[in-house]
């Protein structure tokens, strides 16, 4: 990557950090648009694998961003993407938490919460859609749908689901 590309990558994650209302996973579709589409740093399989690796490892889900950076450009890539996605939001969180906490019942604060909530939901569905990929086979769609149903309706341990997915995939059934 050229210095300009490094800067573009860092700048894009700084921007996404401030847009990631509802968690870093809600901006995954835009990471896909840039990393896989515009910059061509990773492919579809690597993109999905990044999120799967982070889900299968302990810790906050946001670490999938570091895995994507690592796949795109090694450890330096991981540092650039993770610092980019964390720096603005953590700074803002500290300042705004104190501010918003004092104005919890203020109408603009409540309107912001209420207005953003449905958009956050739509973005979560979009992330699921993009993770399934462009041309999924029906077993893959079936596995995704079954998982969604189990997570929605039962309290099954998430690790059991990840494990089941790994076994089903390793057997070559997808």
């Amino acid at each position, binding site marked *: 990557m050229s210095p300009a590309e490094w800067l573009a990558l860092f700048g894009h994650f700084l*921007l996404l950090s401030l*847009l*990631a*209302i*509802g968690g870093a996973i809600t901006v995954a*579709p*835009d990471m896909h648009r840039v990393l896989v*589409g515009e910059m061509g740093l990773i492919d579809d*399989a690597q993109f999905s694998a990044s999120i*799967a*690796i*982070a*889900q*299968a*490892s*302990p*810790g*906050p889900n*946001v*670490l999938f961003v570091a895995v994507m950076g*690592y796949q795109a450009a090694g450890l330096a890539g991981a540092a650039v993407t993770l610092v980019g996605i*964390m720096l*603005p939001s953590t700074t*803002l969180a*500290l300042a*705004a*938490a*104190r501010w918003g906490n004092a104005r*919890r*019942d*203020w*109408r603009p604060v409540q309107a*912001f*919460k*209420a*207005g*953003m*909530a*449905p958009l*956050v*939901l*739509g973005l*979560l*569905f979009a992330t*699921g859609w993009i993770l*399934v990929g462009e041309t999924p086979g029906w077993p*893959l769609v079936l596995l*995704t749908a079954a*998982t*969604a149903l*189990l997570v*929605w309706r039962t309290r099954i341990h998430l*690790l059991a*689901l990840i494990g089941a*997915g790994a*076994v089903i*995939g*390793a057997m*070559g059934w*997808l």
Partner: protein
Amino acid sequence: MPGDVTDEIEAPSRPESPRALFVAFTGLALQGFGGVLAVAQRVLCEERRWLTREQFVEILSIGQVLPGPNVCNVALMVGDRFFGWRGALAALAGMMAVPLAIVLVVAAAYAQFAYLPAVAGALKGMGAVAAGMIVGTALKLAGTLRSNPLGVRVGAGFALLAFGAVALLRWPLVWVLLALGCVACGLAWLRLAPAHAGGKG
């Protein structure tokens, strides 16, 4: 009066140092596969008893409104509450440092063995499950639209518009959020008026 409600009932315990925060958050992060939030609630409220449930819910709701990873925002705010910015850094570092090392080792191992069909297949399966988990979580959270001032229908409409613009049309997120966000927040502001006629502002 909406004062410092959070401080009315204090939790029975508190961390003795930023270092204790670091250790506690490392521990709970390492228990969290596929998300840390549920573990965070159990450890902070029930095991360590640093926060009451009400305090946790309040911190979480602020964390969810702010951009950035929810659990990281929660870590920051919990740390900040006890030791200011030093506590915030300690809690966040605890949440991130060891899990980051682990996930990078796993990613490096994946790069070594990605050519094996079984490894590629396993990751494909885990990817499908990860997608399903996100959709399942979205379905769970969709229930919160019922208490949204926008109402279920309008809320679902905005969710669909956001989905269509981002997933189907692949428009850049920043414009989608700015455009839809302004309309949705504006509408919510209008809807909130009658119920909060006596409120501030």
